[in-house]
């Protein structure tokens, strides 16, 4: 079994899901609260990676990041190496690929927050940011956690995009799902078996934790369905 591929995958997934939280939250907020007529265009763009074949997405990203593209050349001038077939390139590609998994649960949770509470918060003089931190975010925490975990899990298992953009370089862009693909081709069935088992167990544990968090299984650590932290005082 290939531990370097496992650690690389974990690193990639963690970087992606946390970054997704940072850039996904404003997008989800905007999607939930905007009254723009043509919002559905933006929603479609965010959801595109769900339906687009990973190879198509990977191809687009590869062309966009490659050494013949403006972005690729700019990055090359900046750092001395291109973006394609690097860990950074993989992060960018995975960010795009897992965007809907992060944004959609968050947007759904945000738009279910009672508007009266948000209005009350601003009536009482809270800034928009403070309203978000103290009202919207705590009430949508289960959606945020779901988005976080889903984008993490999706990046963990992504294959097509990673293969196209990363080029399968051991220790740099070879994630666990690609290592499994390689092991099968090299007739290393036992190694493929072990890696696949690790991935299976890991995915199961991650999903179980998410669902249990949403169901108040773990006392003070759990997140109530209605969003409030159960450890918080009642009043």
């Amino acid at each position: 079994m290939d531990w370097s591929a496992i650690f690389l995958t974990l690193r990639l997934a963690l970087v992606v899901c946390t970054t997704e939280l940072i850039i996904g939250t404003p997008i989800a907020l905007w999607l939930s609260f905007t009254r723009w007529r043509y919002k559905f265009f933006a929603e479609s763009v965010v959801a595109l990676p769900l339906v687009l074949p990973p190879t198509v997405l990977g191809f687009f990203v590869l062309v966009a990041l490659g050494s013949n593209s403006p972005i690729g050349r700019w990055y090359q001038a900046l750092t001395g190496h291109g973006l394609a077939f690097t860990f950074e390139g993989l992060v960018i590609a995975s960010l795009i690929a897992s965007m809907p998994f992060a944004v959609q649960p968050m947007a759904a949770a945000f738009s279910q927050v009672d508007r009266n509470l948000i209005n009350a918060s601003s009536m009482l003089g809270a800034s928009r940011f403070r309203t978000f931190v103290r009202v919207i975010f705590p009430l949508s925490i289960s959606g945020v956690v779901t988005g976080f975990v889903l984008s993490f899990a999706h990046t963990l298992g992504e294959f097509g995009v990673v293969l196209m953009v990363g080029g399968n370089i051991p220790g740099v862009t070879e994630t666990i799902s690609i290592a499994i693909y390689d092991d099968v081709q090299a007739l290393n069935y036992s190694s493929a078996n072990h890696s696949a088992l690790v991935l299976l167990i890991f995915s199961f544990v991650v999903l179980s934790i998410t669902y249990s968090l949403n169901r108040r299984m773990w006392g003070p650590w759990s997140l109530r369905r209605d969003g409030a932290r159960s450890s918080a005082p009642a009043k």
Partner: protein
Amino acid sequence: MKRVNPIVQAAFVLLACIYIWIPVQAAAAELKVAAAADLTFVFKDVAAQFEKQTGNQLKLTYGSSGNFFSQIQNGAPFDLFFSADISFPKKLEAAGLIEPGTIYDYARGEIVIWVPNDSKLDLSKGLAVLLDPSIRKIAVANPVHAPYGAAAVAALQHDKIYDQVKSKFVMGENIAQTAQFVQSGNADVGIVALSLALAPAMKTKGRYVVVPPDDYPPLIQAAVIIKSSTNKELARQFLKFIKQPDTVALMAQYGFTLPEALAADHGSTSAPH
């Protein structure tokens, strides 16, 4: 207002930890080698030998030569490219993407017809065996970007049976995947590289017959140092290592014989098969 939401606090700590983790990239001391999939097994031994002799590690990526060709054109950070067909290094040379004068043809590749041990097919018929009605799937590498696939198609066209058998093709992305298709029993018969048929994992599982080399254009395998490599000294060292007699002998065990012209240059006595 003083009290920051603990979840926000936790998120910030988590973020800080993770971003600090990013720069932990692998040291650049290893040699990144893009190797044609027919080298999957032999390069495991070659890499071990190289490491033992020089202490330097190889990072090997296997795939189809055509795929590597397009990746290198797009700036893939490989130091060395071992192609199953010299046309790709030549095209890279024309594009100015390789270190001048480093193309080295290290072997001539051969294709074989391979069947699992329990197959009842009579391989002595050569390629004509593929016409057997009991065959449902024939594993072939994708001729568009895998040189062994192109060779298989050329041989079938040479024997004028291509049109009759092409509907039964299952295409491997590269020659190693093609071998896996038939080794696992999912295809009834496969046209694979001799080097894979001679590998321990395949040798005991089936039998093969060599396709006459005159039936298809020669598969001259060539290695080349990529221009963008940051590790050219080590890359040259590895090329030199590949030319050493004991490495040549090791490669020969897997069916990689030096091209005749080259063998003559070196005054080698390696007999044609």
